[in-house]
């Protein structure tokens, strides 16, 4: 046993899970490459371990390995997974299956995908108990209903008889937790169980998970990329990066006194501070705009906002609030039913086809996912060069020179012009998208969740880049996001949307520090804070 293995609670027979020197390889293009480079992990009975890291850190792989399982296309190449004294990796599949579902259970990220669409929830909840002969059918159903109640699902007696598609996302996550609890396992692996949920839903699901795990004294591995979320549940936190352990410490210590620079960078976005500015020079104003998909679904209701020139306006809301639809209406993809959009005082034609090339040039859009925003078959030079040629008529040498200039502006080397998007990292691709927007010399850039698909440290870099570009070029940003931390970092003004309506607008300090509308207050209170006591505090305040 390696001497550096951290084991804060180590008390001999209390130990439930011991992973030693775990190594896993994955297959890409027919070649096996290491993904997990020797990880140790210890877990006592009733203990909750937070497993945290960014995409590609291998946290889900480690979580599944705790069940003796690897995804197809991966394989164990070394180490051991000792569960309650027996090595899961060295036993035959048949014996492994006796542990899975019965003594170690799993809760996945998306209930929509992880529940079989063909069976009712209750069938799936009791399945493991029946297959492993834990309970007879009637008792299994009774326990499932009891668990539904404990996890505060509405109408616990009835809800199990629905099909997955008839139940909301938050309810599915609760039902999946009930499914994991059915056999009263010793260990549950939670793999980002609240990541796909809106913040206001996340709080309640989080509270339900915490309560039930405590009630049954179940040990848990809680996987997430959000340190603030895991701080509410975990006794101990382990940080992973590139398949290696970075740091492992008790939750309090990890938050108050992180040892590694990488750990500190996990809340990098929260370090950006920018003074708020105001302006009376209006660049774009949306006047009483309503819009709908098809003829029936109204997604924007009477939106009335002003965007000041050279400033950053953040549009905040949860999924379904209409914030992205607002962007589509401004850009001309979804002509409004009524109302109009004024650009520098003149009405914008409602659809793209009706706008002049010059108008199209002046308003640019940057997307959330840089992976899908760049044509994989066009080189970076072509991607950035096309708007130069299309809008400004630059060709040949002049075009090449300008591409190089733009690459420098976004802090990339000129040689990037010859690369294809597939060869770039997520952050680099997003920089290329920014350069493509800048190539048009726009007055206004709409940023649609531009940092949501990126890791924290990359988010910080991109936000700083955008701030710098605004200072140098005086471009106006409309920043669409669901992430309050990003709003705090970059916005001058904030617009809060809910169900297609603007519920609050004003300067950043006014909206974030002194919210007036109940929805804004709810939204802000639901954002997890880097404080283990936050969840209790919120719940206590709500129950008042």
């Amino acid at each position, binding site marked *: 046993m390696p001497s550096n293995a951290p084991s804060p609670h180590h008390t001999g027979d209390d130990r439930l899970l011991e992973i030693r020197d775990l190594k896993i390889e994955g297959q890409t293009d*027919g070649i096996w490459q290491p993904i997990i480079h020797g990880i140790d992990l210890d877990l006592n009975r009733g203990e909750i371990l937070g497993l945290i890291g960014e995409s590609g850190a291998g946290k889900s792989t480690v979580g599944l390995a705790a069940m003796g399982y690897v995804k197809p296309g991966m394989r164990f190449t070394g180490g051991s997974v000792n569960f309650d004294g027996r090595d899961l990796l060295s036993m035959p599949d048949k014996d492994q299956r006796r542990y899975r579902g019965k003594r170690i259970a799993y809760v996945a990220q998306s209930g929509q995908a992880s529940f079989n669409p063909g069976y009712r929830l209750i069938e799936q909840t009791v399945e493991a108990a029946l297959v492993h002969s834990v309970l007879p059918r009637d008792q299994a159903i009774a326990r499932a209903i009891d668990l539904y109640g404990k996890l505060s699902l509405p109408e616990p007696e009835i809800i199990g008889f629905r099909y997955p598609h008839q139940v909301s996302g938050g309810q599915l996550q609760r039902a999946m937790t009930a499914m994991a609890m059915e056999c009263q396992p010793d260990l549950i692996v939670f793999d980002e169980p609240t990541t796909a949920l809106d913040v206001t839903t996340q709080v309640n699901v989080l509270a339900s998970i915490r309560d039930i795990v405590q009630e049954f004294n179940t040990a848990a591995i809680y996987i997430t990329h959000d340190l603030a979320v895991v701080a509410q549940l975990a006794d101990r936190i382990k940080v992973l990066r590139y398949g290696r352990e970075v740091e492992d410490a008790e939750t309090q210590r990890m938050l108050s006194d992180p040892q590694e620079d990488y750990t500190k960078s996990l809340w990098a976005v929260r370090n950006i501070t920018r003074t708020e500015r105001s302006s009376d020079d209006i660049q774009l104003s949306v006047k009483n705009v309503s819009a709908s998909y098809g003829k029936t679904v109204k997604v924007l209701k009477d939106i009335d906002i002003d965007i000041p020139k050279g400033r950053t306006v953040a549009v905040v809301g949860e999924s379904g609030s209409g914030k992205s639809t607002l962007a589509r209406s401004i850009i001309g993809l979804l002509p409004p039913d009524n109302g109009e959009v004024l650009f520098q005082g003149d009405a914008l034609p409602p659809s793209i086809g009706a706008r002049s090339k010059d108008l*199209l040039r002046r308003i640019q859009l940057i997307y959330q996912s840089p992976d899908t925003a760049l*044509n994989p078959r066009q080189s970076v030079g072509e991607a950035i060069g*096309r708007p130069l040629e299309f809008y400004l008529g630059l060709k040949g040498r002049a075009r090449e020179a300008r591409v190089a200039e733009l690459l420098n502006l976004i802090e990339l080397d000129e040689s990037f012009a010859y690369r294809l998007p597939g060869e770039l990292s997520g952050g680099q691709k997003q920089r290329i998208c920014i350069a493509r927007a800048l190539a048009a010399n726009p007055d206004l850039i709409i940023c649609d969740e531009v940092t949501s698909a990126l890791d924290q440290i990359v988010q910080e870099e991109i936000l700083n880049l955008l701030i710098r570009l605004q200072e140098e070029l005086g471009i106006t940003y409309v920043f669409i996001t669901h992430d309050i931390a990003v709003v705090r970092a970059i916005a001058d003004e904030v617009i809060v949307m809910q169900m297609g309506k603007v519920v609050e607008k004003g300067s950043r300090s006014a909206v974030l520090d002194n919210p007036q509308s109940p929805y804004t207050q709810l939204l802000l209170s639901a954002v997890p804070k880097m404080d283990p006591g936050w969840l209790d505090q919120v719940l206590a305040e709500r129950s008042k």
Partner: protein
Amino acid sequence: MRTAASVPVTAWIGFVVIAIYLFAAIFAPLLAPYGEAELVGRPFQPWGDEFRLGTDQLGRDLLSRLIYGARNTIGIAALTTMLSFFIGVSLGLLAVVRGGLFDHILSRASDVLMSIPQLIFALLLLSAFGATAVNLILILAIIDSTRVFRLARATAISVVAMDYYEAARIRGEGVVWMMRREILPNILPPLIAEVGLRFCFVFLAISGLSFLGVGIQPPTADWGSMVRESATLISYGNIMPLLPAAAIAILTIAVNFVADWFLNQTSGLRDAK
């Protein structure tokens, strides 16, 4: 890019066989000992030094006819496949880019065309227009282009759902740019694999129709009709009809081997992303 070593044996066999067939097709006049429709001996002469594979029911050299058959059958099938792709891909992309009613009408039209089994449809049209080589090519190309249309449209739709496509729309790009620069390069790999599969289908269909006597007409040497002409010999334990049939089967197997490998590879690349 992968190295040649990772290409499976089956695909290698496929490449070699295709090369041999193409060689035979291109250099047919040099390779064949006799002419395509030349009467050189008595009917049904046995295998021997004079006629390596014997003669057919009219006394033509079977080996020569097999070699010329490569030229005719493969040539017509390749021409049909190319035409079918030209029609199918351009309409498919246009349908997706234009969208709306245009797309709707084209899609429904192809649905209706596809709800008649292809061979039956071909028989119907051939009976109306007469069985000439040109008709055969046009009819099969049009029937087959519905499948290409559907594939091109389906793959193009996944491109249209991408943000980069929308970005080009917002930029104000025209239809031609959208089709040629944004969509086509991204759907090329599955389309190329489909060329192999469609060729196999067309090739089998032409051979089948010729076998039935409504495809390529005599005296043109063609494998399908050669099977039909000598079919009765099978009841005397003679393998003559099996030779042209085997020629068809072996080429189709080879093309399928290559197309299957290519298909696996392109879908593998898609999975990796």
